[in-house]
Each structure stands twice: as C-alpha cells, then as structure tokens.
C-alpha cells in the first residue's frame, strides 16, 4: 500500500499519515476474507428483496 503519496490532503498531514495495512499481502487477504464473509449474507438479502417484489405484485391499495 502506498501511503506516502497523499494526494488529497495538505502537505502537513503527510508526516502523520501511515498505511493502514502493513503490506499488499495483508490487504488482499483481509479483502478476500471480508468478501467471503459478506457474499452469502448479501445473497440472502437479495433473495428477500426478490420475494418482497413478488409478493407486492398482487395486493391493491385504494
């Protein structure tokens, strides 16, 4: 991770800024772990959304 090229912050911040992940390996491992944990949960949520839309096809409001 390149925490040295702080393009969005004023120069005075550069001294304080450090990378959050120690290495690219750590970043990739954490990201993949994060994705593998959220993917099944997001799929469950998407299924709830699909079923909600199906159920809402028939009921009329007047």
């Amino acid at each position: 991770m390149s925490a040295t090229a702080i393009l969005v912050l004023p120069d005075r911040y550069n001294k304080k800024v450090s990378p959050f992940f120690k290495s690219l390996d750590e970043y990739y491992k954490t990201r993949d772990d994060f994705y593998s944990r959220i993917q099944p949960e997001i799929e469950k949520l998407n299924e709830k959304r699909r079923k909600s839309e199906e159920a809402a096809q028939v009921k009329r409001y007047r």
Partner: protein
Amino acid sequence: MIRDENNVISFVEFDKTDNWESVFRICPGYLTEYAKERIRGINVKCVLIETQYIDKDYRNTYSKFHSKKFVTPKERCIRLHLFSNLIDFENPDSLIWQEHYSGYIILRPTLPNSIGRTLLSPELFINEKCYLCLCTENVMVNGIDMEIEGFPFISQDTDATVCAQSSLWMLLRFFSNRYRWYKEIYPFDLTCLVKAHPQGRSFPGAGLTMVQMADALRDLSIAPLLYCKNQYGKDFFKYVYNYIESGFPLLLGLPEHVVVGIGHISDLTLTGSTSSYDFFQGIVINDDNGLPYAKITANKMDNPFNLTIDQIDSFLVSLPEKVLLSAEQFEELVQELIPLFKKKGIVIPGFKRIFLTTGRSFKKKALKRYRDIPEVQKFYLKIPLPHFIWVCELSEPELYSKHLKCVGEIIWDATSNVFDSQFGLVIHLPEILIFNQGAAINSEADYCQIPVGNIPYSIYNNNLKEII
C-alpha cells in the same frame, strides 16, 4: 367576528360568536359532516377565506377528467389560510402575518372527499417530540408573500385518484418542493404515469399495487425499493426507521390501504439501547382518509382509525437513482467490519445510528460539528465525497441519548455496488481515522490512517426536523 362575508376574500376571527362553524357557513356544500368534524379539531385563532381560488392540482384533474362528465363539478376551489394568532386583516403586516401563519387547506368541489392540496404546520397537530421530513412553500395571501413549512397532504377524490395516487402525490410533492431537480407532478398526470403499467381500468380508480406505484416512480427517474415484512421479519421496522432517519418519506402498505410515513417518534429516555433504532416508538403518517400528521404506534388509541404499527406489511422507499447501496446492505457491511478491525486490535464503539445523506450536506455540517477536532474538520473539508453517502455514527448509549453526541462514524459510498468500495470510504474512530485515499482520487483502494483527537461531537442533524 366575520369581515367581508360576501366578498371574494373574507376573514373570520374566532371569538365567542364565530369559530369553524362560521367558516363552514361561508363554504356551503364543500364539506361533509365527517370532514367538518376533523377540521373542527384544528386549533387556530382566525381564518382567511379565498372563495374563488384556482388550484393547479384540482384544475389538472378537472380539465382532464371531471370536465368530461355530463354534470360537472365547479371548476374553482376555496382556499383557507389558517393563523395561530389574531392578525389585523385590514392592515396587513407581513412580519406579523408570517409569524402566525399556520398554512392552508384547499377545499375542492369533489364530495365526499373535498380536502385538496394542503400544507399545514405540524405544530397544529403534534403534541409530543417527533422527527419529521419537511419542505417549504411560498404562499401569496392578500398580496403578502409568506412561507410555510410542512408535509404536503391531499385526500383522494375517489374518481380520478384513490389512496394510492394521493399517497404518491404527497410523496412527489414533498420531493419537488424540497429538491429543485424533481419535477412537480399533478394528480391526473400521475394517474397517466400509472396507466403505462396497467392492471385493470384507470378510471374510476380501482387501486394500485405497490409494484405499479414503484413502476410509476421509476418513470420519474426515481429508484424505488420494496420491502415486505414477511421477508425481513424483525428487521423490517429497522429499515423503516433508517430510511425515515435519512429524510426519505415512505409509502407504507396496510391492509387495503396505503399511507405516507413522514417522520418517526423516538423516546430517548429508554435504556438498554445499542442503536438509535432502539428508541423508535412509532411513525408520523399522512393518511388521506384523515388529516395530516397522524400517529401510528403499537397502541390503536393513538390513531384516529385505530391503525397499529404491526398492521404495516410492506413499504416502498423512493431512493435517488444514484443510490445503489441499500440500508440493509450497508448495515451488513458495517457489521462485518467489526471482526476485521478486532483482528487488528481496534474496537468499534457499540452504539450505532445509520442514515443516508449527501456528501455536500455532510461537508456543510462538518465545519461546525468537528470544530473541536480540527484535524478531522480539515480532513472532511478537503476530501472529495460522493453525491450520496451512507453514514453509521458511532457513540455510547448515554452520550447519544442525553447529549446527542457521537465519537466517530463509518462512511460508505452509497453510489457504489455492495462489493465495489471494499471497507468503505472513511472509518473515523476515537483517536484514529482510516480512509480510502484511492477512492478519493478515483484510483485503486489505498487505505491510510492518521491519528486524531478523541472528543465527542454533535450528531449529524439535517435530514429531519425535530418538532416540540
């Protein structure tokens, strides 16, 4: 006292002899006994009556629908301007009139439901603390330009519009009043939008399904999301709360009826909370069968039609097209961040408040909110933010409920797909601020950290207005 009773504009001061009955006498034939009963409960001191008012919304349905009948209703309306205190009708003073102005009710000649476009101050109806989505309108009364803040209301005419169109109209008028990029939509035009997605005849209104309402909204470049209680279980009302807290009014589905959820009632004295949702007690609704600002809670006595909150079985939220990430997806992402940070020895505070807002509004408030933590203030003022952001404010239960303060926030790009923005844009915790520098410059993810102060600051407050 009544002034200019037989004139085009007349005025009723409420005293020992004159009250709402005098107003009703000046508007003969416009109101049923049922409607009068509802209006009698509104506590005002005087009413200015315009008896020849041309209402843009009624004229729209009159021209395109009512005028085609053999016997047509009148084409003019009556507009009632309500004042919470006595004003001098003969010598108008714009400052005093504005101070006491409580809004207007338009009466249409469409019995039995004759309450047309209405914008009233919530203070006329609300008697406990609540948080509302509000918009403002400029109103010209007797040559005086006044402003009124409230949530638009209209009743169905049962011919061209039923509760579904009325609720859609209220929602859309709120958006067009509050945000200039939404077009003003009139009732008949709304019915025509729905005609593009037919299920049965359009007139007389036979009712709409939530899917038809969602399709009509899509045609207006709005991206609606539908939630059914039987799918989301106990989380259903959490999402109702999150979206209202984000300033989005909701279409709430009840058995055979739909109403607009325009605010929430929260009791901050409750204990044992882990999120601001735990304080949630009920919803403020606009129900076209009644008057604006009704309540719906667990207690049926709180609602004029004995509706209870558990009867709500679905809701539809009208998100801007750019918002791709939903409330439940954002909540899931935040939830999964906790173990990730724990591995690195970082603890995320336990109390959460989730809402959607614009990057622009967040920055605007940052100047004041972070004034005691200048490094955070400067960071937020400098860093590019997306048009829409999901925010999870982090706090402690007492710090939030007693002082309305927080200690950090997690910010996610709401315009991103659920897998796009990795660990979010900003994770601001006590003593450390982690941010995705790559996202800020539209490049590869690049998470950096900077040490920051640990000083509680006020919660973000822009989406809703606190009443009482």
